[in-house]
């Protein structure tokens, strides 16, 4: 009697096990499909953009200013604006971000103020970018009277990407082993000399990678620059940091907003230029990481 029940139980167990494993298979497939859906969406987007934009990817796209006619329109002022915005932003954000990172990681005492700074940085990383635009509008455009200038845009972008640079700098510095610092200090170097000549040198590739990734975030940002009033229709070459300006994503936004199909395709061509720029920056970051990274 007992033998019969136990074998019966085994049969139910076997059946249930098969069912449980089927359910497991369903979960695995569903999970894989979730990722593949994301990738499919990415590929669809890229193919759509390339189909629409490729015919418009011609020399005029780079040499012409924007115009009322799609055939005569180009990205000349937008490309200039984007490049100079990146240059000015880098000049400000790299020393400030890396400096702040070194301070917090190597020198900051463990006290309330340091903790407050750290909470601040964590919070700033989560503030929507358009809020930085309002800050830039109130502080730089109106407050400092810089107007809708390139420099006002660069200052706004500096504050926007600063948390990213600080965080990546800190991670890079943290990866340098303590023994390096102790060796330098034992030879009589000051704390700052240790940080400058040893810690910073060893963490430079990782910091550079972080800087490039932060800049690739900045080059695609649109909302804060629209808020500070970066213009879309600029038909002259940029002459200095106090000039009004436009950038690639704003020019793309402007073309998407126009009703004519020609401008939509032109926007797609602009997107191709922007994505190629972004992908090459990312490739450079990956190359740097693989080539120069030091494994401890």
């Amino acid at each position, binding site marked *: 009697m007992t033998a019969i029940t136990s074998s019966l139980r085994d049969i139910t167990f076997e059946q249930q096990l098969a069912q449980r494993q089927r359910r497991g298979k369903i979960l695995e497939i569903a999970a894989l499909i979730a990722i593949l*859906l994301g990738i499919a969406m990415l590929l669809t987007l890229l193919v759509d953009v390339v189909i629409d934009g490729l015919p418009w990817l011609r020399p005029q796209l780079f040499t012409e200013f924007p115009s009322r006619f799609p055939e005569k329109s180009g990205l000349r002022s937008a490309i200039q604006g984007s490049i100079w915005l990146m240059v000015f932003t880098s000049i400000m954000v790299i020393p400030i971000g890396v*400096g702040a990172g070194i301070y917090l990681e190597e020198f900051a005492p463990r006290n309330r103020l340091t903790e407050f700074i750290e909470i601040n940085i964590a919070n700033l990383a989560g503030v929507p970018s358009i809020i*930085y635009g309002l*800050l830039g509008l109130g502080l730089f455009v109106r407050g400092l009277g810089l107007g809708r200038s390139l420099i006002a845009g660069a200052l706004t972008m500096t504050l926007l990407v600063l948390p990213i640079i600080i965080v990546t700098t800190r991670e890079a510095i943290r990866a340098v082993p303590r023994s390096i610092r102790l060796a330098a200090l034992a030879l009589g170097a*000051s704390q700052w000399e240790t940080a400058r000549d040893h810690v910073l040198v060893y963490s430079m590739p990782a910091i550079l990678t972080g800087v490039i990734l932060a800049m690739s975030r900045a080059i695609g940002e649109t*909302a804060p620059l629209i808020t*500070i009033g970066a213009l879309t229709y600029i038909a002259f070459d940029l002459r200095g940091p106090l000039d009004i300006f436009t950038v690639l994503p704003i020019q793309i936004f402007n073309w998407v907003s126009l009703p004519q199909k020609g401008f939509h395709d032109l926007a797609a061509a602009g997107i191709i230029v922007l994505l190629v720029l*972004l992908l090459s920056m990312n490739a450079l970051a990956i190359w740097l990481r693989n080539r120069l990274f030091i494994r401890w």
Partner: protein
Amino acid sequence: MTNRRILEQKTVLVIIFLFALVSVFTTFGIIGVLLQETILFFEQVSIVEFLTGTRWTPLFASKKFGVLPLVNGTVLVAAGAMVVALPLGLLAAIYMSEYASTRARSVLKPFLEILAGIPTVVYGYFALLFVTPILKSIFPQTQAFNALSASIVMGFMILPTVASVSEDALSAVPRSLREAAYALGATKAEVATQVVVPAALSGIAAAFILAISRAIGETMIVAIAAGQQPKMTLNPLESIETMTAYIVQVSLGDTPHQSIAYQTIFAVGMLLFLMTLVMNIISYFFTKRFREVYE
């Protein structure tokens, strides 16, 4: 040490300390700028009308300042985005953390990173010119600008964030928990859904809240694809306006400084800032909790 070296260290320390303070100034700057104009705004408009009014027409001749239609639009789009991003993101995280081989991970992960790195203006283009026409062919009543296309595309934009933060939480669950469950005869899926996911719940909650906060603050997709019609509706096929899209709309026009329209964008910005701040704080505490448990 020579005096010069001491002096150098002291000078540098002061400078990089000031650099670290820039972040504090930024926070104060944001609050200060928003408060300044918001206070001016509330001198002319009652805060009760702002928070409870259901008509938003600051740019028309008969001005109404009820912000609820903008909040309605924001929540509608964000909720739609979450319907896409949360289940797909969590499933993607489970796959990456529990199922994927090292090779599969190294192939799949870069794709998700690219998805996260695409500028939002590109997603806006895609929502307006690719997704909306498809929606129109399925639901003919779809308007040229609509909340649904923005929601779907925003959902995919946020998916990598949900996936990567949730994956961190899942990976932080100690091996011993998984092995104990296997020893009791659980299948792989049972371990994942009944042991690992519950154990990582606070981290997953942090990911979800972070995602909602991102969706509320997202600007370009809604500015391009969702329209400029602030209204109280739950129909995702209609044109709506979000808080962020309103700020863009006013910024594109030539709004004179010190006009009431200029002040509205700061009042709306203040509300947006407070909403995302609350969510970031909640998310921060959830993250801290799961770190405390397992690290």
